[in-house]
């Protein structure tokens, strides 16, 4: 795997899942702890169906992510559930379910070439244009559509939303399903990036938490999330590829570096809270 290829995969994985988490958070729900699970199951579904075509795989992955995020949304919107415990429960659920499904399906095999186009003799990853388009599209959706405005209203000024006649539950559900779709699609890239020897029980190697950190540092704002997701993706790429440049060193030692640096970035960015209301609580930044 090339450096550039891995970087594109990591950017897609982290950017899309953090944008998905942003759709949760701007609506007032918290998805940070379930991201691992959503990515894992979406990735599994996508890889299993990658035999059809790349876009079908991504669609199916997104659908699987939507199903899982529906569970999270159900918990938070209707069952008055605790997002942290519920999210962690869904992550454990996803890990066990992934193993069970993988066993039922007799293993997961996919061809990486499915997700690559050939342009002028060079292999270009399918994820590249999608990753490039993700942040601008999210920004447009969130700030220039009625749905985005209402979603943000639900999260930030809930009483104003009620007064304006916004259907809060339905809006939050739509945000959650969209977030789940993005997270599921992101999982495909995550699993490809992690490589063939990866056991599904290990989730997506903690990338869900990196995405959650990117979302929190970005305060749920698309362009800032892009910045932090790029940072995290660069770190993760370094961690994944380091084994090729230093084969003698233990590979897993590099994998912890993104987390250390992500914690540092979190420390720097969590002190100020720029988004009011329930979104702040969803970001874990309320006081």
């Amino acid at each position, binding site marked *: 795997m090339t450096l550039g290829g891995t970087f594109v995969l990591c950017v897609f994985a982290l950017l899309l899942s953090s944008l998905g988490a942003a759709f949760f958070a701007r609506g*007032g729900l918290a998805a*940070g*702890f379930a991201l*691992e699970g959503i990515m894992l199951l979406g990735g599994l579904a996508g890889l299993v169906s990658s035999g059809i075509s790349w876009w079908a795989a991504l669609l199916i992955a997104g659908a699987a992510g939507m199903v899982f995020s529906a*569970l999270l949304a159900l*918990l*938070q*919107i*209707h*069952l*008055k*559930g*605790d997002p*942290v*415990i*519920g999210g*962690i*429960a*869904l992550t*454990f*659920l996803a*890990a*066990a*379910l992934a*193993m*069970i499904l993988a*066993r*039922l399906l007799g293993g997961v095999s996919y061809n990486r070439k499915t997700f690559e186009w050939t342009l002028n003799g060079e292999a270009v990853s399918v994820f590249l244009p999608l990753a490039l388009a993700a942040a601008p599209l999210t920004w447009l959706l969130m700030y220039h559509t009625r749905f985005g405005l209402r979603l943000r209203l639900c999260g930030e000024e809930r009483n104003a939303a009620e007064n304006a006649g916004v259907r*809060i*539950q339905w809006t*939050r559900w739509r945000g959650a399903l969209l977030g789940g779709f993005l997270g599921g699609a992101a999982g495909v890239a995550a699993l490809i990036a992690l490589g063939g020897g990866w*056991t599904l*029980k*290990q*989730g997506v*190697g*903690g990338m869900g*938490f*990196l995405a*959650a*950190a990117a979302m*929190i540092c970005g305060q749920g704002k698309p362009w800032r999330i892009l910045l932090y997701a790029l940072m995290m993706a660069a770190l993760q790429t370094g961690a994944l590829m380091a084994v090729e440049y230093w084969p003698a060193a*233990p*590979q*897993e*030692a590099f*994998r*912890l570096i993104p*987390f*250390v640096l*992500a*914690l540092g970035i*979190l*420390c*720097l960015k*969590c*002190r100020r*809270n720029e988004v009011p209301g329930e979104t702040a609580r969803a970001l*874990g*930044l309320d006081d």
Partner: protein
Amino acid sequence: MRSKRFQRFLRALLSAILRLALGLALGYVEMTLIAYFHPAEGQASGIVPALTAAFEGGLMPMLRGGSSGFLTEAAKAAPAALLAIGVAFSWRAGLYQLGGAGQYALGAAACAACFTFFALPWYACLLVSAAAGCWMGAVAGWMKNRFRVHEGLSTAMMAWIGIYAVGAAMQCFSASKADFPGIELPAALLPAAAALLLWLGMALTAAGWAHGTRGESERIARYAGMDTGKITVLTLTISAALSGIAGGLGYCQGLLTQAPGIKLALSGLGAQGLAAGMLANGNPIGTVLAAGLTAHLANGANSLDTAVFSPEVGEWIVAQILYLSAAGMLTHAKKDKGGRSV
């Protein structure tokens, strides 16, 4: 019998039973689905054979559990129980300590190092395990106080740091298999002792009162003049130390057949621990009992009919119980957020 305390206890107990029963019932339905779509060889197809297969090959083995004696089962469940107590203790203070997996790995690695390189006795090894785990909680608490970083996120990320660190260490060093004859009795008693100590502390000391108050409302605790920052750091440290000891116990009893590390990242122990803590509504003594139950279920899953079901079904069901526990409407919520519909 009509006292408020007893009513609250009864409500908590009933909701725990409800969650358990619902989780098992859901699990049975899912096992039936698996048996229906993926029957074993020689099994007739159809709904009724699937129901029977799921019952005899799935549900009953799980409920029956392992075939070892009580002491052995208690000792084997001790790591999960200690993890559970740690998580429950910090949950009671309103803090989410989700780094159990990483602290477990570090504790096991520290214990292994002590035994392999220094040949220390078991209690010294466990103390080192506690130290190996507790720094995570301290750092997470400090980050929460100083930088307002959500402790759940920071502990979860530090867990991955710990897991990868131990994985890397295991690639450089190798540890000998633990040999601590007679460890079963202390292992079986340790969770109960820890739970008792914590419960007494929570019930009888001022610090314990502050700890519980912070769980009910952090704002009110601060308004009342309690040092919530110190409570945060201490609670998370104790919780992480307990998880470290859990890892050490796991190593001492030889429960870790592979290198403690990445394999444990999303292992059932974390789910069992959290589920037990939630079932008991955070009460330490109840948590030990609930942990025994969830460990029993998860270990029972090892004796499932492997032709049809994979052993992860046990973890799946425990995770479902955890999910149901998170649903406020089914729980006796420790923190009542005013009942406003979302």
